[in-house]
């Protein structure tokens, strides 16, 4: 019988971490470019954050403070699970406070509080290829990126406008990075796209199943695709958070009864709690 398995600091072996760090460095050197990397099986399923977890596991050190969010919240099941994973395998300090964290792993949101230099935001990415749903073949999409052949994407956005009067992409809204690569911001609502632009924090994107890592170094130009006569519009809510009264933040709609009752609350639980802690109420 085999001896009880023992695992390295932050689960991954050091060789694997070095391989992933090399991919990350390359990604930082070519902002928005998808770097292939030899993604490992992780003890959580593909599609549940294995890319983000591998990136975090490769950059985390004993002194780091980790925050994990899913849908903006620290208490969603998958965020809890990933946070516990690093508590268990790396023994690092964790936090729910955005300002305290050195590494923030996220699925689907960027925190409301502005990030600062020295912080790293790690995105979990399901489909890293922004052109995938226009062209299913990787061989083709890599060629399109190489040649900066993005006509297909512009045609798609144009067709949206022709059909609906506006671009009908609400999340995973494609961006152009430093005027070169079109990049998928992961399925964050387009509300969060402007936060990526000139962000002082390092933004890393990990796609485990698809074996890709990409990055936005601090202070990178990130522009949501649009047209001169149809400029990008950020999602706006015409209501405020029922708990803390915040406006200009992303809100989750909560169904309160079966008679059409609705409540809107902050998607970013930390932001909401900080405001309520400071005594702000609607």
């Amino acid at each position, binding site marked *: 019988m085999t001896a009880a*398995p023992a695992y*390295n600091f932050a689960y991954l072996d050091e060789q694997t971490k070095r391989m992933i760090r090399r991919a990350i460095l390359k990604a930082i050197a070519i902002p928005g470019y998808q770097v292939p990397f030899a993604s490992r099986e992780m*003890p959580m399923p593909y599609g549940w954050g294995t890319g983000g977890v591998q990136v975090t596991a490769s950059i985390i050190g004993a002194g780091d403070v980790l925050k994990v969010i899913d*849908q903006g919240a620290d208490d969603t099941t998958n965020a809890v699970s990933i946070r516990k994973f690093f508590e268990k395998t790396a023994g690092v300090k964790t936090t729910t406070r955005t300002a305290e964290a050195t590494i923030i792993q996220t699925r689907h949101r960027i925190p409301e509080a502005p990030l600062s230099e020295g912080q790293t935001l790690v995105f979990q990415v399901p489909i890293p290829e922004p052109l995938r749903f226009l062209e299913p073949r*990787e061989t083709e999409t890599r060629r399109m990126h190489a040649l900066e052949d993005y006509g297909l994407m512009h045609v798609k956005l144009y067709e949206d406008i022709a059909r609906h009067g506006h671009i009908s992409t609400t999340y995973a809204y494609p961006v152009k990075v430093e005027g070169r690569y079109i990049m998928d911001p992961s399925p964050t609502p387009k509300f969060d796209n402007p936060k990526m632009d000139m962000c002082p924090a390092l933004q890393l994107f990990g796609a485990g199943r698809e074996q890709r890592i990409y990055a936005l170094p601090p202070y990178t130009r990130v522009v949501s695709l649009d047209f001169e006569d149809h400029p990008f519009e950020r999602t706006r809510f015409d209501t405020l958070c*029922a708990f803390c009264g915040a406006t200009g933040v992303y809100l*989750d709609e909560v169904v309160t009864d079966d008679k059409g009752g609705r409540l809107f609350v902050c998607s970013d639980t930390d932001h909401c709690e900080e405001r309520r802690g400071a005594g702000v109420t609607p």
Partner: protein
Amino acid sequence: MYVAVKGGEAAIDAAHKLMAHERRGDPAVPELSTDQIREQLTLAVNRVMCEGSLYDPDLAALAIKQARGDLIEAIFLLRAYRTTLPRFGYAQPVETADMQVRRRISATFKDLPGGQVLGPTFDYTHRLLDPALMDKSVAAEPERAAAEAEPVPHVTALLGQEGLIEANASPDPAAAVGDITRDPLAFPAERDLRLQALARGDEGFLLALGYSTQRGFGRTHPFAGEIRMGEVAVSFIPEELGFAVPLGRVTLTECEMVNQFLGSEAAAPQFTRGYGLVFGHSERKAMSMALVDRALRASELGEETGAPAQDQEFVLSHADNVQATGFVEHLKLPHYVDFQAELGLLRQLRAEWDAARQPAADDTPAPMEAAE
């Protein structure tokens, strides 16, 4: 009042506790041991080792027990363990011609050197439920014979003597070994990498793809040249020794398909090959793999392409069941913020739709439109 729609740590812990409880089942029934699984659910253990890419019957049995018999979950457990193991190096290629054969059949020759050896097989059984197995069963002693001293050459080697089948590419011994668990898969992928991906690919997926080629979606005119199952020795050259030392034996199933090929201007007509090799005893998987391997060679052989099984991006990107199950099941994860964005858009689209159809006060609806 809105209490908590978002999950919590306590809920997760409680759910896992409940799952462990369900796994045990009725405590009045004796607990299944991993030894029992390894010895009596051998084919399940084999599949988990094969698609888990780790030859360890004890750990595979443990994974099956822990996964409550869900084999894909068990494969996942084994993979997540395997990936953390240090990589010392690569074993020497195994020689399947020297296999200690427990089963070996050919559908292309009635008799051949080494003979037809049926071995342990479901083939030719009548699939009638056996009530005797409901109780404790005592299997009758099998017939025994001394191991054959006669060599058991591959059928393809026999065909190769006449030049009737394409020669296998002779690999450069100095070339680096491709490894899909250490390098990301890029397209087009060479055959060594394709075979690796197929070997750990989902049995059901490969079965369906292989089947589709038989039904005309990329026909390859296959014959089961040979299927053999048995034990082969594995050896390894440690850097400090410089010569091969035996590591042990593994059970393998190998399938060599012999496929039609008409020849071209440049090449005389000859048979072509499709190859399948898997851990343990799994003929269905080995045969499916061989069919798909051959189908994936269509463009290399200048054949018409376009069928799903001939499309390597399609086949290789979707064959891994650990990837597939993860991504399919990730739809269970919360998607509230994206859904919120879609809700907002849908409400806007509906409002615009309604507004566009709001008849102006002095408008009379056109009867023609109503008739449409």
